[in-house]
């Protein structure tokens, strides 16, 4: 699955998907839930809350 497809499904830009993947952007709670739902996972599994994220 390409970043473009993920971005389109989540309603964000490809640059934002890349920024989240690289830890350069911490998504909002609604977007985090959408990401988790999209990948059939949970927010806890998708994101590490202890990790410092640069926004």
């Amino acid at each position, binding site marked *: 699955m390409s970043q473009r497809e993920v971005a389109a499904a989540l309603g964000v830009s490809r640059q934002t998907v890349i920024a989240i993947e690289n830890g350069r952007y911490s998504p909002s709670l609604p977007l985090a839930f959408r990401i988790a739902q999209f990948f059939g996972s949970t*927010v806890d599994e998708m994101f590490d809350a202890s990790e410092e994220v640069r926004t």
Partner: protein
Amino acid sequence: MIMTRHPRLRAPAVMAIGGSVIAAAVLIGQGWAAAVPVEVVTIAAAIGYYVLGGRGGDLAAIIGRRADERQESIRVRARSLAAQVAGLAALAGYVIELARGSAVWPFELFVAVLAGSFLAGLVIYRTGGAGPANGPDSEHEARSHVIS
């Protein structure tokens, strides 16, 4: 309304209207010769802005009014920086004009508007934003903070 149907047109339209108002002021104060270049630059800038807004990338998304949440946060921070720099520039201008013994009221007005809008923002976003920490939604608030 065209503004709602074509959000990409919003910024160029505001730019064109603002520039035309300035051009009209120049026309009244200095005549056609000075006003025409202002209007030409305004129209060129508005067209350039519209074209840029249709391209890819963060900047184009912000300009074209189709920013996602990350790009919107970039826009907000950039505007905040611009406001801070404008405030500092006004303060510098105020000090310089004060030392020169010139009229300082435009700088005073600018700083007063800046400070007033900042206070208004605090009031508006405090009351209309996150809501009370101990209100009925406090459990949700606490959970949100843990996750984020």
